[in-house]
C-alpha cells in the first residue's frame, strides 16, 4: 500500500541526476590531538625572557598569576603558545583543568572564575576578604581604582609622542576594548582632530603631562601608604590588592620608558617589597619544559 503512494523520481530526472554522482569518503583521522594535561595549566602571554622567567609580560595575566600564588595555590603549570584569540572571551589568562578533576574532558576557566577555583582548592575567604577590617576593605577598592586608572594609563601610554596618532606596532595594538587607554582616563579624552572641528574625529588627544602628573602622585601615595608594612593596608596575609600592586610594580620596573620606571626605583620600600613578593610568586609556578614533580 505504501508503494502506491510513494513518490518515485521520474526516469528522465533520474538519468539526469546520475550525471552528477555523490561520492562518500570515510572519515579522516586527525593526526594531532591535544595532549591531556595532568596539572592545572594557566594560559598566559609569554614572559619577557621566555627561557628564563615564569612571570608574564602582560599586566592582566600577571595579576592573576600573583593572585593564585598569593592565595596559596602551588604547582601550577604554564603555557604561553596559545594566542589571545583562542582564549575564552578573547582574553588571557585562562586556566585549563586536568581531566581527573572533572569527569570527561578537561575544562577551561575564564579569568573571572579563578577566585572560585582558588576557593575550592585552598578554602574560601571570609567576608573581610583577608583585610584587617571593614574600613581597610573599603579603602582597598579606592587603591584598586587608583592603580587601574592612573597607573595603568601611564603604562599603556606609548612612549613616543607621534604614536598618539594610534598607529601602534603590532605587539602594542590594543587587544580588546578593555585595554584601550580611553577607558582608563576618567574624563574621556577628546579626539585628536578636535571636538568642535568639521574634520571627522580621528585619534585620541592624550595629555602626556597630565597623565604623568597623576601617575607621579599615585606612586607617591602608594609608597607613603606602604611605609614599612609587610602587606598593604596592614593585613596579616597577602590579599588581592597585594597581587594587583605587585603586577603593576613588576611591569613598571621592566618598562622601557624612563620617566615611568624612575618614579618607582626612587622609592626603596616599593622596590624591596616587589622583590620579596616576586620570589613568592615565582615559587608557585612550574616552567613548561621541566618534568612534573611526583
Amino acid at each position, binding site marked *: 500500500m505504501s508503494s502506491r503512494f510513494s513518490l518515485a523520481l521520474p526516469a528522465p530526472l533520474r538519468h539526469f541526476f546520475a550525471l552528477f554522482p555523490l561520492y562518500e569518503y570515510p572519515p579522516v583521522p586527525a593526526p594531532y590531538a591535544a595532549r591531556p594535561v595532568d596539572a592545572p595549566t594557566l594560559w598566559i602571554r609569554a614572559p619577557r625572557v621566555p627561557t628564563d622567567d615564569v612571570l608574564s609580560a602582560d599586566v592582566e595575566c600577571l595579576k592573576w598569576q600573583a593572585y593564585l600564588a598569593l592565595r596559596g595555590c602551588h604547582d601550577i603549570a604554564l603555557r604561553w603558545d596559545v594566542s589571545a584569540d583562542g582564549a575564552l572571551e578573547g582574553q588571557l589568562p585562562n586556566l585549563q583543568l586536568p581531566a581527573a578533576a572533572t569527569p570527561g574532558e578537561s575544562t577551561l576557566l575564564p579569568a573571572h572564575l579563578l577566585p572560585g577555583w582558588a576557593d575550592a582548592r585552598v578554602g574560601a575567604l571570609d567576608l573581610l576578604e583577608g583585610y584587617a577590617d*571593614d*574600613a581597610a576593605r*573599603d*579603602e582597598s*577598592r*579606592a*587603591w584598586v*581604582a*587608583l592603580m*587601574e*586608572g*592612573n597607573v595603568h594609563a601611564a603604562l599603556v601610554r606609548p612612549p613616543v*609622542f607621534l604614536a*598618539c596618532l594610534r598607529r601602534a606596532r603590532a605587539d602594542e595594538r590594543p587587544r580588546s*576594548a*578593555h585595554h*584601550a587607554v*580611553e*577607558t582608563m*582616563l*576618567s*574624563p*574621556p*579624552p*577628546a*579626539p*585628536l*582632530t*578636535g*571636538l*568642535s*572641528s*568639521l*574634520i571627522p*574625529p580621528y*585619534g585620541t*588627544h592624550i*595629555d*602626556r*603631562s*597630565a597623565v604623568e*602628573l*597623576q601617575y607621579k*602622585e*599615585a606612586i*607617591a*601615595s*602608594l609608597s*607613603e*601608604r606602604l*611605609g614599612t608594612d609587610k602587606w598593604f593596608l596592614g593585613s596579616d596575609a597577602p590579599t588581592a590588592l597585594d597581587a594587583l600592586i605587585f603586577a603593576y610594580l613588576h611591569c613598571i620596573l621592566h618598562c622601557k620608558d624612563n620617566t615611568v620606571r624612575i618614579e618607582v626605583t626612587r622609592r626603596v620600600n616599593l622596590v624591596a617589597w616587589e622583590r620579596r613578593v616576586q620570589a613568592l610568586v615565582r615559587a608557585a609556578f612550574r616552567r613548561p619544559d621541566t618534568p612534573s614533580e611526583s
Partner: protein
Amino acid sequence: MSQINPGSSHLVLHIWPPHVSALSFDPLCTAALLYLQLSIPGRFTVAHCANPDASPSGQLPYLTHGLHSAATLPAIIKYVTHLGRARDVDAALGPLEKAQSAARIAHVQAEYGDLVAHMAYALHTNWWKTTRPALVSMLPVPQRYYVPHRMRESYRPRLEAVDLWGTPGEEVEEEEEKRSTFQREKKKRQETGPEKFKRTFARERVLERARVFLDMYTKLLGDHQFFYPHLAQPTTLDIVFAAHTHMLTSLPFADPLFTDLLNDSYPSLIAHADAVKSFAFPDPASHPPTIQSDLRLSIKSLFTVPAHPAPRRQPSSPETLAEERRYKLMRWGWIGLSALAVVAYIRWTGLTIQFVSEDDEEEEEEEEAATLEEIEEAVDEAAA
C-alpha cells in the same frame, strides 16, 4: 577671552556654563570652581566656555594665568597650591591621610564619575530630554548640530568597558527613534513582557552598584559634616565628592534614577554637598566675576589644528644658542649655494626655453609627413 591688559596676570578659570541650578555642567568643572573659591577667594575670574578645543589638553576645565596655563583638575590644583598667598586646602592632613585621600579621590573620580556619566549620557530618556537640550543651548550655531553626539560617543568606550553603557529596552527605543525620524506618526511600540523584565533587571543592577559605592562613603562620612572631621573644613576629597553629588541633585534629569536613590536613602550625602557649597559660597555676593560664553559663529573654531604636545625645550645656555646660530647659518648657506649653482649652470650651458606656437607645430607635422613620403619613395626605388 578676558585679556584686557596682557601685562596684568589675571587668573581665569574656563569651565562649562551653568545649567538650571548646577554651578557648571561638568562635575570636574564644578570641583575646580569650588577648589579655587576655597583656596584663592576673590582672586580669580570665571569664564564660561563651550569650546573644549581651546584648552591645551582638549578638555575643560582649564586655567590661564598670563602666559601659563594648566589643564585638567590635578594640574589646576597643583598650580593653585603653589601660588603665593594661596590657602592649601589639604595642609592640615598628615602624610598617611594625604595618601589615602589621593586614592579615594581617584576612586570617586572613576566610579562616581562613571555613574554620573551613565545618568547624563547613557540613559536614553535623560540624553534626549535633559542633557542634549542643555548642551544645544550652550553651543553656538554650527557646533550645536554635531558636537553633542560626539561628546556622547566619547563617553561610550569607558562606559562600555565598565558595563554601564545601555540597558536593553532603551537600545530598542533608540533604533525606533532613528527609523521614525522622517515618518509623520511615531508608533509607540509596546514592550513585551521579557523585555520589560530585562530592562528592570538591568536598572536594578546599576542601582545596586551605586548603592554599594554610596554605602562605602556614607560609612566613611558617619555623622560628621566633612570627611575629615578634625579639620572642620572641606578638603579636596570633600570637594570632588560634593561636586558629583551636586551634579546629580541639581540637574533636572527626566529619568531620576540616582537622584531618587540619593534623596530617599542618603540624606547625609546631600547634606554634605550642601555644606561644602555653602562653605565655599557663604552668600550670593561671594560669586567670582563671570564672563559669559560667546555664542557667535566662529569660523576658526571649525578648523582646529590637530594638537600635538609642545616639544620639551631644554633651557637654552649660551653654548646652545651659538651652536643653533651656526647650524642656522650652515642651513641657509647650503640652500643659497644650491640656488646659485642652478643659476650658474643655466647661464654656462646656455639653456634657453623656447615657446613653440601652434602654427609651428602644424608645419612640423607637414614636414614630417613630407619626409616620410620621401623615405618611402627612396625605399621603393631601392627595391625596384
